């Protein structure tokens, strides 16, 4: 039964609120209706081509949507799915092929050649920046400037574990465990003070010569035994990752970051008292060989490779 609005003559839905409030029952606009039928047809086509309906323990796989992809074990063809699509893209996608070509090139080149070749260097800079940003920058910071006291600076020319490309590659692949024992139970506070004075004197920092002379005996003798790792010249050993104490670069005690002589002394004393344990994770399992090579070349390019 059709209801009509007495004034306009337009058909209404028939129910009335608050005495005279009614709802017109105009037909849907044609364009809207056809768009709606269009979506229904789209759905039917979509259901046919793509995996769609569950049936028992399986589902309709769709038609004419085969993807052929290659893995380590061979070539396979399957119905459309995002995993196969990704595999295909990672192996033979346009970007993957460009990248692969560059990586193959890097693989066959020596580090010296990579540094010289502008194109390869440009690739190393862009690809290496990505890997470095994701895996290394969390500790070593953007640009490899490090955090004093925690994570070594990779952009200066001091390398605890060696700065040749071979050393850097080894460090990335196997990680490092940096360890200096704590001397708080071995040496008295007085003696730690003497050693700290000696350590400061090594790089020309202000120190008490009398205390430093006493400290030298402890450092170079069996009482402290510091020379065993830092060497008698105090230049450090890359096999141990022990720091060179004679240069102007401080990686743990923040001597350069504080002003007063007392604060500098305290910074060194704190390291001797508490020791150091630092671990860099091994990336050999996580990163591919070529990625490690690019990363090594990238880090070497910070201007401080040896």
């Amino acid at each position, binding site marked *: 039964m059709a209801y009509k609005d007495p004034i306009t003559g337009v058909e209404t*839905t*028939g*129910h009335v609120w608050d005495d005279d409030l009614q709802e017109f029952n105009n037909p849907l606009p044609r364009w809207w209706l056809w768009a709606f039928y269009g979506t229904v047809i789209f759905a039917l086509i979509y259901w046919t081509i793509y995996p769609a309906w*569950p049936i*028992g*323990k*399986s*589902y309709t796989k769709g038609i004419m949507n085969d993807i052929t*992809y290659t*893995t*380590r*074990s*061979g070539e*396979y063809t*399957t119905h459309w*799915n*995002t*995993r*196969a*699509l*990704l*595999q295909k*893209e*990672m192996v033979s*996608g346009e*970007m*993957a092929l460009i990248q692969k070509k560059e990586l193959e090139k890097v693989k066959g080149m020596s580090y010296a050649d990579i540094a010289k070749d502008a194109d390869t260097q440009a690739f190393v800079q862009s690809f290496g920046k*990505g890997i470095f940003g*994701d*895996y290394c920058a*969390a*500790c070593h*910071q953007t640009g490899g400037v490090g*955090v004093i006291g*925690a*994570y070594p600076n990779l952009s200066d020319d001091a390398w605890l574990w060696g700065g040749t490309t071979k050393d850097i590659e080894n460090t990335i692949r196997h990680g490092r465990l940096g360890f200096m024992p704590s001397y708080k139970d071995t040496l008295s506070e007085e003696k730690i003070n003497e050693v700290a004075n000696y350590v400061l004197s090594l790089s020309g920092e202000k120190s008490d010569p009398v205390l430093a002379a006493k400290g030298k005996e402890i450092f170079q003798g069996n009482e402290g035994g510091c020379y065993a790792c830092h060497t008698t010249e105090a230049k450090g050993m890359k096999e141990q990752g022990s720091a060179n104490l004679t240069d102007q670069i401080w990686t743990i005690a923040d001597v350069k970051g504080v002003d007063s002589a007392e604060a500098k002394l305290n910074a060194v004393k704190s390291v001797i008292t508490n020791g150091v344990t*630092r*671990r*860099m*994770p091994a990336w050999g*399992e*996580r990163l591919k060989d070529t990625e490690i090579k690019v990363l090594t070349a990238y880090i070497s390019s910070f201007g401080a490779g040896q």
Partner: protein
Amino acid sequence: MLKHESIETNAGLLIILTLVAIGIGGLVEIVPLFYIDGTIEKVQTADGKDAVRPYTPLEQRGRDIYIREGCYTCHSQMIRPFRDEALRYGHYSLAAESQYDHPFQWGSMRRGPDLARVGGKYSNGWHVKHLNNPRDVVPTSIMPSYPWLLKNDLAYGDIKDRMIALKKVGVPYSLTQLEYDANVKKFGEEVAKMLDINNADANLLAQAQEKNTDGDPSRVTEMEALVAYLQVLGTMVDFKAHDEHEFIQFR
């Protein structure tokens, strides 16, 4: 016969019928996944054990803290099968990898990076520093500081109850000898021991002390639990040992 008018003028009925209509849409999408073969991939190690195991008591407590602190509001744990995600985060997440997660932490918002494969990526010491004050290691970080994690002792008096609750929703922690034996068969003896509810407290303590993430062996802090959890994320499946085809064929 339901008429247009009777639904429209009856709010209660309108709500119920709206829920039914939406419910059908949801159920059609979700329910089939429970019985379609291969929704959860079978991933086994070389010696025939399940690669993905439930969390140890310490990791599970860490997971509780992860949820308590609302980490999921900014971090997802779901790497999607796209090239950009593969390059940044690693292998796409498998359904198998979150099969023991209740509730799952897939998330839908990334204010911070995805954490599905964060395990082993950074050192324990880095995590402690970072959680305590992110700006100490990432100057530009917008993540809040969580300094109380190092101060709070981990409450684990109710760890057994927590594991029993998870067992009720299908996580294979063991209470009886029979269940333990089944776990030995499924996961190997070493893992089965960690999943034994009867030894939960001892296992939790032993793992915390072995790792000693916070540098103080005399106590177990919330930090240690959370870091133990973060360090296991995404590490259970050794993707180098599998051919990609193994995972693709499940789709």
